[in-house]
C-alpha cells in the first residue's frame, strides 16, 4: 500500500545542532501512527517540515503519494489537518467563531462545523468564548479545527499534552476510532510510550533527531518486555525449583525477580514453582520505561 507520509533522509540543522538527522518515516494509510520521543527529540520540527512550516536542510517529504513542492503544497495541505504545538485559537472569539475562521481559510462549507463539533463533543459549548475553555476543551477545539473538511491525513503534535487523566482518556478514545470513523490516517506524537501503546498500531521512535525504531507496535513491545516479579509464600522452596529449570532468579524484597522469558517457558516455570509447594500468590510483568527501551534500542543498533 502507498504510504500516506514518506520522508527520505530528512534533515534540519540549526547552527551546529542537528535537530532532525536523516529521518525516514513510512506511515501506512488508515492507521494510527505514534511518533514517540522525549521532549526536544525533533518531533515538532519533523512535523513542521511535513507541513512545510519549516524548510528542511536536506531530504524529501512525500505526502499522500506525492513529493511535496512549493507548487503542490497548497493542494496537499487541503487534504491535511494539523494541530502543532497546541492549543491554537483566538480566545476573544467563541468556539464556533474560531471554527468559522478556519473553515473560511480552508474553503470548507460552514455546515461542516456542526459535524466536527459533534465529533469532539463541544456542541454544547460552541457559543462560549474560547478564553473560558479549559485546556482539554481547547485541545479538542484544535482537533475539531484539524478535522474540518474531512482531511485524509491528520498530523497532531502532542494532543494530550497538559490534559488531566480523564482528558487523556477522552482524547485517546477520540483518536483511536478516527480511522474507522472518518477514514483519516492519524500521525500523532507523544513523549509517553504508555499512552501510544493504547492507541497506535504503528510506531516510530525518535531521539536526538534520529529514528531508533519504526514498525508495528508488537515489534516494539518485544523490546519493551522487562523482568517478571513472582511473589510466593515460601521463596526458599521456589528458588531451587527455578534453578533446576535453568531459570536464574533473584530474591528481592520478599519476591523473586525473573528475567524476560517466552510465554511457554514462563508458564512452565510458574508451574514448577507451584508444584514445589512454594504457594504462588502474584505474577506481575514489569514494562520497561521509554528510557530503558531507548537504551535497549541504541544498544541493539550498536551490536548490529
Amino acid at each position, binding site marked *: 500500500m502507498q504510504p500516506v507520509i514518506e520522508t527520505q533522509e530528512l534533515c534540519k540543522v540549526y547552527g551546529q545542532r542537528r535537530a532532525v538527522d536523516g529521518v525516514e518515516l513510512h506511515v501506512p494509510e488508515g492507521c494510527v501512527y505514534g511518533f514517540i520521543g522525549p521532549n526536544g527529540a525533533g518531533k515538532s520540527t519533523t512535523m*513542521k517540515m511535513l507541513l512545510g*512550516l519549516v524548510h528542511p536542510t536536506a531530504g524529501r517529504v512525500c505526502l499522500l503519494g506525492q513529493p511535496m513542492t512549493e507548487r503542490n503544497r*497548497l493542494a496537499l495541505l*487541503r487534504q*491535511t489537518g494539523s494541530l502543532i*504545538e497546541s492549543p491554537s485559537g483566538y480566545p476573544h*472569539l467563541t468556539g464556533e467563531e474560531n471554527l468559522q*475562521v478556519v473553515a473560511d*481559510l480552508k474553503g470548507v462549507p460552514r455546515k461542516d462545523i456542526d459535524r466536527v463539533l459533534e465529533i469532539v463533543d463541544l456542541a454544547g459549548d460552541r457559543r462560549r468564548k474560547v478564553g473560558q475553555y479549559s485546556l482539554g476543551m481547547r485541545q479538542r477545539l484544535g482537533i475539531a479545527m484539524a478535522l474540518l473538511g474531512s482531511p485524509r491525513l491528520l498530523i497532531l503534535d502532542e494532543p494530550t499534552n497538559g490534559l488531566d487523566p480523564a482528558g487523556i482518556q477522552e482524547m485517546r478514545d477520540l483518536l483511536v476510532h478516527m480511522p474507522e470513523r472518518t477514514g483519516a490516517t492519524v500521525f500523532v506524537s507523544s513523549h509517553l510510550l504508555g499512552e501510544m501503546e493504547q492507541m497506535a498500531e504503528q510506531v516510530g521512535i525518535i531521539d536526538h533527531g534520529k529514528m531508533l525504531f519504526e514498525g508495528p507496535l508488537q515489534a516494539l513491545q518485544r523490546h519493551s518486555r522487562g523482568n517478571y516479579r513472582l511473589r510466593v509464600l515460601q521463596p526458599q522452596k521456589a528458588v531451587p525449583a527455578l534453578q533446576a529449570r535453568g531459570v536464574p532468579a533473584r530474591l528481592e524484597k520478599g519476591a523473586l525477580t525473573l528475567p524476560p522469558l517466552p510465554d511457554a517457558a514462563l508458564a512452565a516455570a510458574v508451574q514448577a514453582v507451584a508444584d514445589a509447594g512454594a504457594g504462588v500468590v502474584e505474577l506481575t510483568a514489569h514494562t520497561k520505561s521509554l528510557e530503558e527501551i531507548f537504551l535497549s534500542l541504541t544498544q541493539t543498533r550498536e551490536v548490529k
Partner: protein
Amino acid sequence: MFLRCFRAENRKLHASPIWILFFLLPVISAVYGTFNYLQNLGILQDQWYSLWTQHTLFYALFFYPVLVGVYAAYLWRLEHRGHNWNLILAAPVRPLALFLAKYVVVLKLVLLTQLLVFGLYVLCGKAFAHLPGWPPVQTLLFLLRGLVGGQCVIALQLLLSMLIRSFAVPVFLGLAGGVAGMLCASKGIGLAFPYALMQVGMNANKSEDLLAGQYGGFLLASALWLALFLALAHLLLTRRDVRA
C-alpha cells in the same frame, strides 16, 4: 483565496477591543483641534480650511500612525499569541493572501476612521466654531489622498508587526515615523518617506494645496512603496521558518 482570508480576518475583529481606540483617538484629535482653532482665531482666518489644518495636524502627525500601528499590531498579535502562526500557515492559502487580507482589513478600518474624522470635523465646525455654510469639497479630496498615502503606512506597520512580536515596539516606531515624516515633508522630500506621504496627502497643517501639480509623483511613490512592502512580506513569509 483572498476573499476567504479576508472573511477570516474580518471574523477575528468581532468583539475585539480595538473598536474602543477606533472611536477614542479621532475624538481626542477633534477636541484638541477645535480647542486649538478657537484659541487662535486671530491667526487662523481661513475658516473651514483653518479648522481642517488644526484637526488634521495632530491626527496625521501622531494619531494616524499610532492608530494604524495599533490596528496592525493587534491583527498580528492574534497570530503571535497561542500558536496561531502554525494554524494560519498550515491552511491551504498562499501566505501573501494572508498578508493582503490583513492589509485590506486595516484599510477598511482606516477608511472608517477617516470618515469618522471627517464627520467630527464637520460637527465641530458647525457646533463649536459656528462656521458658515459647509466645508469645501476639497477637504474630502484631502481625505481620500490621505488614504492613498496612508496605505503605505498600513503595509509598513503590518510588516513591522509581523516581524516584531512585541505590541508596543512597532506602534512606537510608527509614532517615530510620523515625526520623521513631518521633518521630511517640511524639507520637501515627503514623497520619499511613507509616513510623510500620508501627511502631504491629508494636507495637514497647510492651507495651500501641498500636492498641486505633483499628483503623478504622489501616486507613483505610494504604489512603489506598497509594491516594495508586499514583496518583502512575501519573501519573509515563504523563506523563513515558522516560529510559533
